[in-house]
């Protein structure tokens, strides 16, 4: 029937019947679980413990060594109706404004075709620009904000004003200083311009310069690159690794080298654009399974193996499963133990994109494999980026030695793209050594621990305040639901007025009623900063009335009152 975040497959575990005789509901899910959906307060009473063990069913199979808790609370119906009404009113006003612009009553700021080419076939359709000129332009000042300092825990923004409702921006010349940065992917706090890593990068720049002026295959293979790759391989626990200059290009250029025509790619619904582009460029058949839904994945694997290729029914040459470690829009963590179990059972290959999870999850910061306590050799291709947790730029692929030897000669990125710049390489080496503890300090371990504590604290306080937060309890990406289009712009602006910088996302990057603000927790955030941020978020949340959650922690609220 209707879909919503709650209707979408959640606990999509591997298809096993529960043994305690409880009758499964639709799709093998335990029916009783439904009834406990709304009536329970936040604290679970002892009789629910049984439900949890069976609902969180795979713990019965022994796949998960720790509780896997994620929540995607359903949109309240009233909020959904109001959101649609909001979009409806904006649409009506959009049509009105278009009418006024057409009849020259209002000045038209949108680019138009040249006079000489007026009778040519139009390049763009007017209607396709409707959303951009009538909705996006109104709240455009929440995006593309220029920053003028290092994006650490606090950042400086260039102040800008708009005289004509965001069609053009003027710089006032002032700088907004000390804005608490809740939007940068700075999970371990390595985005800094002082300290050991910055000094090491500066030294290397003095020695090697900034540009490399060649590709890896020609004259661009520095000894620093070799050292970095060995270090990355050691960090991940794989045999060999290779690094590329751009994280997006790592995915889009290497997946075509791995699969081709006659292969099958099973990719998650919410995969990043780089994975989708890489899959498309490879020419393989792509099938999409529901987000993090292991039943959907298993069904697709079985169908693929049983039926083979579409018309000829020949067996697939290879089957590659594309998943991400942390999905940055939902904050959910992949169900890696189950994916690996499925992969082994059906003999498929696994490509794990740890862009957001490397450095951010796991007791040693080694990513989602470390978080679940699994063997890195089970994942065939471990990909990740250096942009998020290491404060550098670029991506890497790790795996077996034969795979990497193949990629070194067959990947487009290796053959055609310029190699990484030496200061960036040095930053990676320094930060990775720091995380592993090889520089002789406990700084890395402290940062990883700090991030975990920050995440737990922040998420818990936000859910206590009554916001709807998506995602896994351990993920440092915290999407907070705003739902209504006007609140997207209002939230961004109000937070900036109170000196906090956030990233807000709306339609079409998210489903139409699920617009959100996304916070990225950093190890560089001190408790004071988080407390300030939380109090401001609570204040703005009260002002905008975005505290939609129906599972408020009643006890804490009563006491705080």
């Amino acid at each position: 029937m209707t879909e919503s975040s709650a209707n979408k497959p959640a606990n999509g575990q591997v298809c096993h019947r529960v043994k305690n005789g409880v009758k499964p509901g639709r799709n093998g899910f335990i029916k009783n679980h439904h009834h406990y959906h709304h009536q329970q307060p936040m604290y679970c009473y002892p009789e629910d413990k049984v439900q949890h063990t069976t609902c969180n069913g795979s713990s019965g199979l022994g796949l998960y060594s720790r509780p896997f808790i994620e929540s995607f609370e359903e949109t309240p119906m009233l909020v959904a109706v109001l959101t649609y009404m909001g979009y409806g009113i904006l649409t009506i006003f959009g049509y009105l404004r278009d009418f006024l612009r057409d009849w020259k009553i209002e000045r038209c700021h949108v680019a138009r075709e040249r006079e000489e080419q007026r009778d040519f076939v139009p390049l763009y359709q007017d209607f396709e620009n409707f959303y951009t000129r009538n909705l996006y332009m109104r709240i455009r000042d929440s995006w593309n904000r220029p920053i003028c300092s290092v994006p650490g825990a606090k950042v400086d923004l260039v102040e800008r004003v708009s005289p004509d409702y965001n069609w053009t921006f003027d710089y006032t010349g002032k700088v907004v200083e000390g804005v608490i940065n809740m939007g940068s992917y700075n999970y371990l706090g390595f985005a800094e311009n002082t300290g050991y890593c910055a000094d090491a990068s500066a030294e290397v720049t003095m020695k090697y310069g900034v540009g490399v002026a060649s590709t890896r295959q020609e004259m661009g293979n520095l000894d620093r690159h070799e050292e970095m790759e060995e270090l990355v391989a050691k960090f991940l626990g794989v045999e060999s690794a290779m690094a590329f200059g751009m994280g997006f290009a790592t995915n889009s250029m290497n997946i075509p080298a791995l699969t081709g025509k006659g292969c099958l790619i099973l990719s998650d619904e919410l995969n990043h654009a780089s994975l989708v582009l890489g899959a498309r460029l490879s020419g393989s058949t792509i099938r999409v399974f529901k987000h993090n839904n292991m039943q959907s994945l298993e069904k697709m694997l079985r169908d693929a193996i049983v039926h083979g290729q579409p018309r000829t029914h020949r067996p697939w040459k290879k089957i590659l499963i594309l998943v991400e470690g942390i999905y940055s829009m939902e904050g959910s963590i992949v169900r890696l133990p189950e994916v690996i179990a499925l992969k082994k059972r059906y003999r498929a290959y696994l490509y794990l994109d740890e862009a957001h999870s490397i450095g951010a999850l796991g007791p040693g910061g080694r990513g989602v494999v470390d978080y679940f306590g699994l063997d890195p050799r089970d994942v065939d291709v471990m990909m990740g980026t250096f942009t998020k947790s290491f404060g550098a730029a670029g991506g890497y692929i790790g795996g077996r030695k034969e795979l990497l030897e193949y990629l070194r000669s067959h990947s487009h990125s290796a053959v055609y793209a310029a190699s990484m710049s030496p200061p960036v390489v040095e930053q990676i080496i320094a930060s990775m050594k720091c995380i592993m503890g090889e520089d002789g300090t406990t700084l890395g371990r402290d940062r990883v621990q700090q991030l975990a504590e920050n995440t737990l604290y922040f998420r818990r306080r936000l859910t206590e305040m009554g916001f709807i937060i998506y995602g896994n309890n351990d993920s440092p990406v915290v999407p907070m639901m705003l739902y209504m289009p006007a609140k997207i712009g209002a939230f961004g602006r109000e937070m900036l007025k109170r000196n906090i910088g956030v990233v807000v996302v709306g339609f079409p990057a998210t489903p139409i009623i699920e617009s959100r603000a996304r916070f990225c927790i950093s190890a560089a955030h001190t408790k004071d900063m988080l407390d300030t941020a939380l109090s401001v978020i609570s204040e703005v949340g009260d002002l905008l009335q975005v505290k939609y959650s129906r599972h408020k922690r009643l006890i804490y609220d009563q006491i705080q009152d």
Partner: protein
Amino acid sequence: MQPKPKTWSLTTEETNLPSPPLEMNRQIIERVEDYKFLGNIIGNKNKMNVGVAHSEVNPNTRVMNSRGIWLTYALGVGMLHIVLLSIPFFSVPVVWTLTNIIHNFGMYVFMHAVKGTPFETPDQGKARLLTHWEQLDYGVQFTSSRKFFTISPIILYFLASFYTKYDTTHFVINTASLLSVLIPKLPQLHGVRIFGINKY
């Protein structure tokens, strides 16, 4: 060398509250599985998705399935009816006929006349020449939304016929209006443009 960051946790020292028992920290996993992934197998071809965080190529195909939109639609029609009822000049039969006509006109314009999407899609404009009705669920017929939006003008027609006491003039007007909005919904007319009207 930075000083060791101050660690904290939600224990009794920090919050001065009795700390909840460990089992009570679990949250209920709230997602329910009930999704038929028709659209994704049939319709979703691998596209380069720039600027979006999901692999749904054309969100227009799924908007009529989202949570709460049927209710919003029904409330919208109800609101229209109440506004028309508030106008003192119109009698009840006239109001019902007007509701029927305006609703069908609106439905025709937005579902069967306007083509394409109000935003750029990453599929190089495959849906540019398709009306919204044709885009629903990537062209799969007889899905729930299609059934709902076919039945709703019929229900409105029944109500209007009842309240106009089956008067001939009203009947003719209402029937013509209903046909104008039912005929484009037939599967046989999927993608058909009569006399080339509204083709490009």
